[in-house]
């Protein structure tokens, strides 16, 4: 049941689930099921698995390498963030790339399936030196797993694209974390983050690639990521949900 006229216009001023009616009535059947449906989508996103073969095909000509954290199943992944940061398997050559892209499942398989390949292609168009370089596909990944992978491959900088924790309104949002001189034990203050990459009012792939290009260029110029690198990019960034 939508808010009674003339309140619908007011309800449009916020993405919050406002009811705008007095009387302390229970939620309507429709509101109850809409909420349950949104929660179900978030739950399914968290417990779903990425189709890595399909992702590799969507990356077309780009070669892929596979890696996995020590968090081998979903319950372990959720309980033990330390294991999700530890590299357990992966035949990773020490190829010393200047910029290594890692795609991790994180907390949303649909985010990876919907956003990762188009974002990688948008980045390759802006950074032609990435063309032909392997992309690492990482299972059971937390953000910091990128540090271990980057260190193993001798990367100067690692860009981790990872599924964000689903909210009730958006379940397929991707986050991108840029870390220079990756090595295990780094704190989150050593990274820069571009979040809310999705097609439902978030940053679209081209806008996200523009912001990442700015951060990558600036990180190369000043030789650092994290708190030393302030995001002064001109690109207007809509806040999540705005």
């Amino acid at each position, binding site marked *: 049941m939508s808010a009674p006229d*003339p*309140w619908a*216009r*007011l*309800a449009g*001023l*916020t*993405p*919050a*689930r*406002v*009811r*705008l*009616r*007095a*009387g*302390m*009535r*229970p*939620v309507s059947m429709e*509101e109850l099921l809409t*909420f349950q449906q*949104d*929660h179900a989508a*978030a*739950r399914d996103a*968290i417990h779903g698995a990425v189709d890595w073969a399909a992702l590799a095909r969507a990356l077309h000509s780009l070669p892929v390498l596979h890696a996995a954290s020590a968090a081998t199943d979903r319950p372990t992944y*959720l*309980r*033990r*963030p*330390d294991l999700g940061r530890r590299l357990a398997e992966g035949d990773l050559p020490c190829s010393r790339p200047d910029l290594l892209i890692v795609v991790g499942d994180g*907390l949303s398989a649909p985010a990876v399936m919907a956003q990762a390949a188009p974002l990688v292609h948008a980045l390759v168009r802006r950074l032609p030196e990435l063309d032909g370089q392997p992309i690492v596909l990482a299972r059971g990944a937390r953000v910091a797993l990128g540090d271990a992978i980057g260190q193993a491959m001798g990367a100067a900088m690692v860009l981790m694209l990872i599924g964000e*924790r*689903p*909210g*009730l*309104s958006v379940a397929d949002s991707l986050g991108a974390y840029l870390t220079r001189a990756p090595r295990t034990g780094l704190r989150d203050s050593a990274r820069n983050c571009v979040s809310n990459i999705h097609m439902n009012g978030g940053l679209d792939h081209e806008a996200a690639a523009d912001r990442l290009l700015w951060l990558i260029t600036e990180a190369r110029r000043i030789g650092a990521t994290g708190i030393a690198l302030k995001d002064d990019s001109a690109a207007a960034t*809509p*806040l*999540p*949900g*705005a």
Partner: protein
Amino acid sequence: MTTYRASARGETFRFDDLAAVMAAASPERSGDQLAGVAADSALQRVAARRVLMDLPLANFLNDALVPYETDEVTRLIIDGHDRAAFAPVASMSVGEFRDWLLSPAADRAALRALAPGLTPEMVAAVSKLMRNQDLIRVARKIRVETAFRNRIGGPGVMASRLQPNHPADDPRGIAVAVLDGLLQGAGDAVIGINPASDNLGNCHAMLTALDEMRAALDIPTQTCVLTHVTNALTLIERGAPVDLIFQSVAGTEAANDGFGITLAMLAEAHQAGLSLKRGTVGRNVMYFETGQGSALSAEAHHGVDQQTLEARAYGVARAFDPLLVNTVVGFIGPEYLFDGKQIIRAGLEDHFCGKMLGLPMGVDVCYTNHVEADQDDMDNLATLLAQAGVNFVIAVPGADDVMLGYQSLAFEDIAYLREVTCLTPAPEFAAWLQAFGLAGRDALPDPGAMARKLGLPA
């Protein structure tokens, strides 16, 4: 260092120190397992409780779980301990203390007088020997009343925080959420925004907007923008209308350092808040938030279990005479509280421990999407807390916080709790609801006039 031994079903277990006993005696939770301090088996957990049962309460005054020399929270707890208040229970073991708490001798007056004589560690220890019904039964006997523009915590009163967060801090979007909450009778604990941006100009603008809304409708409540205590001090200097000063606090000096605070900073903020004299019926100006797992999250847990550290955070809060203390129980995620069962237990523990230490405890009955919990678990916890006498709960439009990305209670859940428990809002706020025609099921206010006063096009 003392080692401890106890048997369960003929098997003997050894514990290296008091912290190990406390951790092993805690009900199972993922955060203690992540920290590597949890019991290895269910039998070991019972053995640890046998140790605690026989342990003299007074031991906690001599055997600091976090070193006195290196931790200012321990120094605050030990130096501030009131031995005269402790005297009635000074000779009891933790097990005897549990029995006494459940007896009629531990009535409202006795528990109020005892609070300054208890340390957080004593309270945490006894909670580990208590079932959920024990935690409810004892907490229900305690009343902690605080006041600013209304009086919270009195008999038969349960308040709520109206949390009108907006992902872009849009003032009109916030006003709509405030209107939504007021129409459903929420907001007597505080109308409090978690800002999306801590930018000072942004926080100042939101404080001004909230204060104008409150004044326009003459609402007997207080407002707050939940930004860092140092920001609040700057905003006070700039003349912003600051009712309550907010800060997240934790149970160790190192974890508080992770929040960018010291006890001295909290004392300065407390004095600055008092100097404004904005309260009309009381002078409680601080609003603290806590949550099990924050110390481990900051790698500052000293091998102590998360529930004991949470109680120590209340040891910090009680030094500053707060209006509100809120444990954000299910916010931190499954690596600390895995599922609905662990969240419900933690919520009842936190409420009990805070009340025992004399705090005006509220609970954010909440969960994130990656926890094994749903709105049914929240119904359970909220219903139990209402029975336990919780001072206030948090409420957001439709149970969905669109800025922080988690689920709490909805405004209509407050109406449910009032219906099944007969609890009422703070008296001044209840009178205001009555005057606006918002107090009853059949009442019809003029929402258009309210919207206009909140600066909204109606």
